[in-house]
């Protein structure tokens, strides 16, 4: 990731406190003419001064890399996995990662050994659907004494997508090809037919983890269920009659989820966009992105 300009340095709030304490000590030492008090005053002054280059150096060689950000639904949290790499030959201590922007989230790494990396996850609240810029990520450190702060800014061109919040009371529209003998998919349509297992992906529902497989030592697996294939369905923006656009998008998002869970081919019709019916993860995300980007 690109580092923006030079790192900047500024005093912390406790620097003011330090100045006050040193000033008071100087006053006491000079009015008492006490050499021992001067020794203490100068020792603290010296150590505080020497701590400044230590702080300055503490971020030298430290860079960050941002991994791919998983989309999230509005109202949930976005996780930004950040890798902090220490390319220097010394252990770096007390590094804070901050995301800029409206929601300041701070994570702290206590130490990173030489030429190792540490990983933190910044959690940002996903308030609004749409595509958001990550903006600038900052590394700060006040190590070792906390009197000055060094700040290193990293510009990132990456963005993350927030899907509309799935909501609404309407049933998934029935397709014309639907057989009358089928009961409507109950309960958020995961089908009842076991369709196999796949490796667990973080973020997946814990309810479908194959705990027996875990017990057998096969790692985390998710059970897949498939509903019987039914006729494809078109989810149409213009067919919904809510006044609020967001409400319509929420309903559509809910339907997309329901249809995907039911393994039922679905298409999306938005003003100006049409996505042909299909099923599967890429299709699901394509539809969701279209919904979240809808103007």
């Amino acid at each position, binding site marked *: 990731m690109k580092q923006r300009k030079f790192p900047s340095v500024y005093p912390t709030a406790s620097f003011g406190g330090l100045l006050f304490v040193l000033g008071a000590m100087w006053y006491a030492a000079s009015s008492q003419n006490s050499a021992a008090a001067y*020794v203490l005053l100068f020792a603290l002054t010296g150590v505080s001064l020497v701590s400044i280059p230590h702080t300055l150096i503490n971020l030298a060689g430290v860079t960050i890399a941002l991994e791919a950000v998983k989309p999230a639904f509005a109202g949930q949290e976005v996780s930004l996995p950040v890798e902090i790499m220490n390319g220097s030959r010394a252990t770096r201590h007390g590094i804070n990662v901050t995301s800029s922007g409206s929601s300041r989230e701070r994570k702290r790494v206590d130490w990173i050994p030489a030429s190792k990396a540490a990983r933190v996850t910044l959690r940002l609240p996903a308030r609004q659907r749409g595509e958001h810029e990550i903006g600038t990520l900052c590394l700060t450190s006040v190590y070792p004494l906390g009197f000055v702060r060094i700040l290193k800014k990293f510009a990132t061109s990456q963005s993350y997508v927030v899907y509309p919040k799935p909501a609404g009371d309407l049933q998934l529209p029935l397709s014309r090809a639907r057989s009358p003998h089928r009961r409507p998919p109950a309960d958020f349509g995961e089908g009842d037919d076991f369709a196999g297992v796949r490796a667990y992906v973080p973020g997946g529902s814990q309810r479908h983890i194959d705990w027996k497989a875990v017990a057998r030592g096969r790692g985390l697996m998710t059970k897949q269920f498939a509903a019987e294939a039914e006729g494809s369905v078109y989810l149409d923006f213009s067919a919904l009659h809510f006044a609020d656009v967001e409400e319509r998008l929420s309903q559509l998002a809910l339907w997309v989820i329901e249809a995907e869970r039911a393994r039922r081919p679905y298409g999306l019709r938005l003003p100006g966009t049409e996505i042909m019916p299909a099923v599967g993860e890429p299709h699901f995300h394509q539809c969701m992105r279209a919904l979240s980007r809808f103007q």
Partner: protein
Amino acid sequence: MFGTLATWIPSFFLLTLAMKFWMEPKGYRLRSAIWKLVLAAVTLAAIFFSYGSLKGIEPGVSVLVVLMSLKILEAHTAREFQVMVMIAWVLCLCGFFLSQDLVIALCLLAAVVLLLVALVQFHGPAAAGSPGSFWSPVGVTCKLLAQAAPLVVLLFLLFPRINTGFRFEIRDLSSAASGFSDRLSPGSIASLTNSSDIAFRAEFPDRKTRPPGPMYWRGVVMWHCEGMEWRAPYARGSSEPGPAQRGALPVQAPGDKAIRQRITIAPHGAHWMFALDRPFEVPPKAILARGNYLWSVQPIRKVRRYEVVSSPEVTGKDLQPRERKEALEVPASISPAVRELAQSWIAQNSNPRAIVNSALQFFRTQRFRYSLSPGEYKKNDLDQFLFHRRVGFCEHYATSFATLMRLAGIPARVVVGYLGGEYNDLGRFFLVRQADTHAWCEVWFPDSGWTRLDPTSAVAPGRASLDLNSFLARRVASGEIEARRSAFVTQLTQSAIFTNIRLAWEAVNYEWDTRVLGFDADVQESLLASVGISSSGPFLLITETLGIAAALLVIYAGWMQLRTRPRVDRVKALYERFCRKAARFGVRRNPWEGPSDFSRRAAKLLPDESERIQKISNTYIALRYSPKSPALVLNKFAKEVNAFAAHRR
């Protein structure tokens, strides 16, 4: 243990600390503002009732300690932690106002270092549980201290000592003064024999070894006789001797026995200054009072260092009639028996020296005893002492002898000072303790002026050449007096190792007192002048100091940057060079392109170099991915990269 603080204050602090340890794991914290105020008010009131005031150093320190304790109960955030550390630093400073002793200084240094360790640990904790988790912050702190050391020395030597004028009184030192007072009464010196407090230390800059002969350190001269009690001529409590008492004796030329001394005096809150018998060159800010003793113009409230030259040959050559009258005054209350004794000596031989000898003979032969606990005497108990009990310490002998001399018509006075002291071979200085306080007499002989006479040596021969403790030890060994301590302690304190450790510690202590505590504005000025920095005003000095400090910091930063910068990967650097060269001929490597794909494409585009490109890329892959690549291959790789496209220019 906690000095002069009321005992409940440190106990309160320890209690809150223990509470914190109990509260923290449970997540309890002092949150309610009302409770905080109530606690603060209650403790402040308790401090007020303990000391009767909130002013002064002890109540001030107590307030700080109490506030710190409450802060401990309340603290939770990072900022509060930082604030606590800084309050603790101020407390360390207060420690120096209570005592500047080297032991205290070392304890406070340890406290400051531990606070720094805590700060470092707080801002960047090391791996918990790993063996380095404690020592890593300690190491960082030591590094900080080591790097700060030159700065501290620089600031200490160069930073101008501006006197802010206003001086708040820390505490009344005159009450804690030495055993000295301007009044010598029976028992006043004997009560000091257990005191190991340091009175002063003296070194002799002109000589390598201790001067020979007994060391009589002159303190104050007493003229006013009240039998067994003597007084200095000025009133108690007056800050200075009156003008009549100032430097009455003409200063004589020193003989070749002159001894230069550099004396470091411990603060005693009064005006006394000490020098070998008798001083004639007066240090600055002091005067030579009547009777040839030093008198500081200002009370001595901090460690002071001065140089003085003494010579035993300095004596007053003439005695003013007024002084003569004063040196012969005796109170009317002296009993006829004592007067008779003095008269009997005159009747024997009226020569003053003969009278003195008869008096000394009297002390020697009449079974007088030298004792640390001679019992109580009142100031009129002269005949009790001379004819009945005959037990006394130096002040009894000095006062009674001088009184007898006056009765016999010989001008006499009492001198109080110190006798002996311990010579420290390591530091080459004399350490004189309060226990070495001594009183002796001076009598006037028309031919030789004021002459020192120590009647104690008539009773306790050998005392004059030793300090009191060695003298007592010798007497204990010969069974003359009872030991004051158990045999084991005596043996331990006299063992060679113990003695050497003690001497070394005293030498270090001396260095601390003279080089650090004695470093004031005057010493700084002379130091700066000696290295050629004339006093160019405090602000220029501050600027220069800060300039040097800034340069030092830049050097540190650069050095640390160099030491920790990433290691250069030579293979990577060479391959990147190869790619740059290729790019110059229009074959740019795409970010997604692996080395073998790129080499195939490059070989196609640059057919005349295809063989070399192939070789470079194969070597690169081998260097990167084969488990072991000898240095030879790396060198070959470098050669190939250098040769690539070399002739195409």
